[in-house]
């Protein structure tokens, strides 16, 4: 489902980041673990098509991201890749429901309010459909971010440091949530983190 080959990226002429090849099956859950500064976020951005590598390729669902033109890449990403960033961001002027609707629309899907409501219900956020994201607690915001990553039933879910700021109990809950959510749509889940507590939870791991 997700393959990388000889991925390389450098921010400036001296430092070149070389990443190990990755090969993930459909529906598999992977942990990409490494210390701060080893380029985890860069790797995540490369995997999500947010950055173009200097060399090497990223292939998702048999599509080479490099081969896609700019707008095709945007659409591919909207439809197939759900990204959960370290810090939750939303369109401030819109409600939770409208944010999710926008995610559907930008991916070229129709706005499906029922599906949005159902998804929010699953994440215990049903009652926040008409609230502005700024009025939610941090935990609630993270769950909305997860909902947004899932709304279009992506092939790949990428999560950037989802547990770094959480205590053990909440860490457990969030990982469980991610695993269940990914399983529901049979998406490939990749969690990129430096959090060693997660080492026990993932069968598939890559050390960066």
């Amino acid at each position, binding site marked *: 489902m997700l393959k990388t080959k000889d991925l390389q990226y450098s921010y400036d002429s001296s430092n070149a980041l070389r990443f190990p090849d990755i090969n993930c099956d459909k529906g598999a859950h992977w942990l990409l673990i490494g210390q701060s500064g080893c380029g985890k976020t860069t790797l995540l*951005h490369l995997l999500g098509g947010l950055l173009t590598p200097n060399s090497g390729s990223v292939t998702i669902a048999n599509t080479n991201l490099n081969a896609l033109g700019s*707008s095709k890449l*945007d659409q591919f*990403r909207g439809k197939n890749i759900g990204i959960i960033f370290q810090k939750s961001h*939303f369109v401030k002027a819109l409600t939770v429901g*409208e944010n999710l609707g926008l995610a559907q629309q930008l991916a070229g899907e129709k*706005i499906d309010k029922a599906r949005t409501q159902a998804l929010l219900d699953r994440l215990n956020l049903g009652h926040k459909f008409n609230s502005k994201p700024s009025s939610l607690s941090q935990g609630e915001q993270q769950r909305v971010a997860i909902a947004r990553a899932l709304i279009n039933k992506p092939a790949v879910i990428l999560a950037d440091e989802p547990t770094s700021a959480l205590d053990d109990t909440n860490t457990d809950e969030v990982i469980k949530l991610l695993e269940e959510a990914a399983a529901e749509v049979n998406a490939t889940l990749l969690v990129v983190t430096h959090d060693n507590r997660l080492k026990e939870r993932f069968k598939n791991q890559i050390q960066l």
Partner: protein
Amino acid sequence: MNLLQLSWKNLINKPLNMTLSLVLFALGVGLISLLLVLNKQLQDNFDKNLAGIDLIIGAKGSPLQMILCSMYHIDNPTGNVSIKEIKPFLNPKHPLIEKAVPMSMGDSHKGYRIVGTNHDLLEFYNAKVGEGSAWSKTMEVTIGAVVANELNMKIGDTFKSSHGLVRDDNLVHDDSEDLKVVGVLQPTGSVIDQLILTNTQSIWAVHEGHAHDMENDSLAHNHSDAPKSLLEEDETKEITSVLIKFKGHNYQALNMGRSINENTDMQAATPAIELNRLHSQMDIGTKALNMLAWIIVFVSGLSVFISLFSSLKDRKYELALMRVMGATPEKLFILILLEGLMLAVLGYIIGMAMGHIGMEILAGHMRDTYRYSFSGKEFLTEEFYVLIGALGVGLLAAIIPAFQARNTDISETLSKG
């Protein structure tokens, strides 16, 4: 939701910013609109009343004042001229003059001016009698359409005139005879509508204290005969001015004015020349106001720009996020552009409303003071061009922020926060 709806929601999410931009925009547009409409209607009012009058002869004083008084019925007369002085010009056989209309001003009724003149005045303004007839005997008046409407006067009404041109109930000529309405003119859209017309002799009659009790007077001195021609009246009697139309515009006609000014105690003024002078004076004022208005529009454009530009700082993550969700850079470009344009359009609409309502209020004042009609209900083609200008300003204000949004670097932005 489409881009338009999203733009709108983004705008109202910053209500104070939006209000400021809108208020400034509306102010600028409103001022421009008001000036355009006012200018046009002033011009119209002036033009409508030119009436083909070539020259005005009256007492020495300010030529502009004489014209404003005798032609536009604003301002006070410069004085009087005697029949003796004016006689040559009233001569129907004068080689250069086609029409010479005597005017006597100075009295009014409830703020509307009474003018002593002859029926030739009606021809100048293409005025026709609507009901009743034009005045013939002394003390008979025919009133203009606006007078009839505003004062609720009809044929058969009688009244006493007041001295002076400003409404003052203390100055009614209580001891003089009544004036009687015998006709109402059709509306002409010119100054005639707001006048009360009678013959010269009526004005004299009122001022000579020519009050007599009809029952007691055994001298059978009645006004049932048509009055004499002015040429046959006592030479010491006075009128205010004469409106002249030449037979042709030849050298002699054009020189007549100068020779009157140099060789007599009267003054002659050419409306076209004096009005041009007035126009150039007013022009300076209007130009200054116009410049002020465009400065306001520019500042409002600046406000829109600052508003959008600073909002981009706040919104950089959500713009990057939209790209992650599948939005193309062009979509972000159009989004910001739409925000700017929407402010411009909304500001324009509010501005137009303000401008025209302002004009209506101004029109009310003008009507009370000058009796001329203005209206906020007139819309001009030029105001459509102002819309184009407003859209242009909106576009200019939004274009740099729009490019910035379009060039959002997803990875760099999202790595930072």
